[in-house]
């Protein structure tokens, strides 16, 4: 347990001092995105890695958070913090209600069901033009503020977002190591066995689904308030797939793995900017190779690779 705390403090320290090296750099903006993606990846990982339930619709919850927050502050001039909490509550309750029928599905069917859900939400963003501005997007969303401190620069937003990330990481680690976490892992390995042991599998799945949706919604609100402009393409099917990729690349069931996955996938487009149109091909290729050769993700694959290399080296010598 002490090791866990040490790991967390180290992570927090890295997060805290990173801006020193990038201040004034456009990379600060990328780091803000990385924080939002980390939150989303952790949210999906709680569902996928711990409870073993796939979702291809998480971009929808992210979008709901962003749009509810955005519309309430810009059109109805709510306080941003209040709008954010309201969005989280609303998305949480909706996910809880929708979760009961949808999470009855399993495997591929669940993938398709959640995908359908995500696409329906996405179409709503596009079609409710009077409310959301439709395909041309929605602008004029207020920044968050505490007293006189307004989060209007990348530097300030960095600390805002990463504070949320650190809280999310802490919550998730706690959850993973709690009774609920153990019940979830039992559910992941065998739903029948978990139920026999007295785990209320159905309720637990729905609860984790709702929690995951709430985290996505908060991330969405943060996104809306830092970007001040949102448009439907950020919340489509492709982004759901991207989130899934982050979780899988990082490693299922590993919170820090989700961070790694999110970091890699946020930086990748920046690195591949030179490659321009080739990025989609490289992206698909990386995803495919990862699943084929490192199905456990980076957190498990890299140490294993390391062991293999050093192990072989030792054997030859």
């Amino acid at each position, binding site marked *: 347990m002490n090791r866990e705390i040490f790991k967390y403090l180290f992570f927090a320290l890295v997060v805290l001092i990173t801006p020193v090296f990038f201040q004034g750099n456009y990379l600060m903006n990328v780091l803000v995105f990385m924080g939002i993606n980390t939150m989303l990846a952790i949210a999906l990982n709680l569902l996928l890695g711990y409870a073993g339930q796939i979702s291809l619709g998480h971009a929808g919850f992210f979008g709901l958070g962003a749009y509810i927050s955005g519309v309430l502050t810009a059109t109805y001039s709510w306080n941003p913090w209040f709008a954010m909490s309201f969005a989280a509550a609303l998305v949480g309750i909706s996910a809880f209600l929708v979760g009961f029928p949808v999470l009855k599905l*399993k495997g591929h*069917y669940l993938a398709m069901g959640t995908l*359908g859900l995500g696409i*329906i939400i996405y179409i709503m963003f*596009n*079609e409710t033009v009077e409310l959301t501005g439709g395909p041309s997007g929605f602008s004029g969303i207020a920044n968050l503020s505490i007293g006189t401190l307004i989060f209007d620069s990348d530097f300030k937003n960095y600390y805002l977002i990463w504070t949320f990330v650190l809280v999310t990481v802490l919550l998730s680690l706690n959850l993973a190591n709690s009774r609920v976490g153990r019940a979830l892992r039992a559910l992941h390995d065998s739903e029948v066995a978990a139920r026999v042991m007295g785990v209320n599998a159905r309720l637990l799945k729905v609860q984790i689904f709702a929690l995951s949706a709430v985290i996505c919604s908060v991330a969405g609100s943060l996104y809306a308030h830092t970007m001040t402009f949102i448009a439907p393409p950020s919340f489509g099917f492709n982004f759901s797939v991207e989130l899934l990729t982050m979780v899988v690349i990082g490693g299922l069931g590993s919170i820090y793995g989700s961070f790694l996955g999110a970091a890699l996938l946020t930086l990748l487009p920046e690195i591949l900017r030179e490659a321009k*149109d080739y990025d989609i091909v490289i992206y*698909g290729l990386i*995803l495919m190779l990862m*699943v084929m050769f490192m199905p456990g993700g980076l957190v498990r694959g890299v140490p294993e690779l390391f062991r293999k290399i050093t192990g072989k080296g030792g054997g030859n010598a």
Partner: protein
Amino acid sequence: MQFDQLLQFSLSGLSTGAIYALIGVGFSIIYNATGIINFAQGEFVMLGGMLTLFFLETMQLPLWIAIPSAVCVSTLCGLLFERLAIRPLREATPINLVIITIAGSILIRGISMLLWDKDTHSIPSFSGDEPIAIGNATILPQHLWILAITLLIVGINRFYFYHTISGKAMRACAYNRRAAGLVGIDVKRMVLFSFMISSAMGGVAGIIVAPLTMTAYDVGIILGLKGFCAAIIGGMSSGLATVVGGLVLGVLESLGAGIVSSGYKDAIAFIILLLILIIRPQGLFGKAESERV
């Protein structure tokens, strides 16, 4: 809503529905043989259209050669996909299988975008654009082509699955892979066949629909998903139920677009998908099963 309009929407819905049916049957064939939902299915539809365009315009071939060539090449892509991505991963978890097919679809889409471009292209109709009047509604000759070719393919499929050794072997795999292997059926080869057949069907669907809807490197996603809706309505059957599912979906979508709003057209399909999944996971016509895994 007048009767004429209703007729018009239904007629055009039927032909889109036929496309969904073809794609849906392709989905089901792979699912039944392997238990995999192939998210890359839509990409073969895209390949069908884009390859036809390539053979027509770049290679300057006549339509009647371009079409079979396009079907052959997309079948080849299906074969390669199974060999390179699916076969090495047969023992993977369902989540990893979902991801590998998604990765495959991204890759195919990306390569097509690089090979061709990001533009939307049109393909000439097979036999002119002179509308044909049916009562007070009209349809295009291409609609007839779509319906006829779909019928033909469904017929061939039926013959293959019920009257040839290889088709019967594939059905045996669908019932019980292990038992099929024990009686000497080469299950691996059947899996390969299933990918080839469904990529060929996807390719055909893409070719016959292209003159109506135009084609581009990214048309595969939504068409593939609609095909999946059809398969779900049909209870993942590789036969008539999915064909009916596709037609029902096409007509409902077309009516919905006409009556409600065309913007929500795609939403209709997914709402139907969710309803069916939740209320009747065995499909509209299927018998209840204890568990869908």
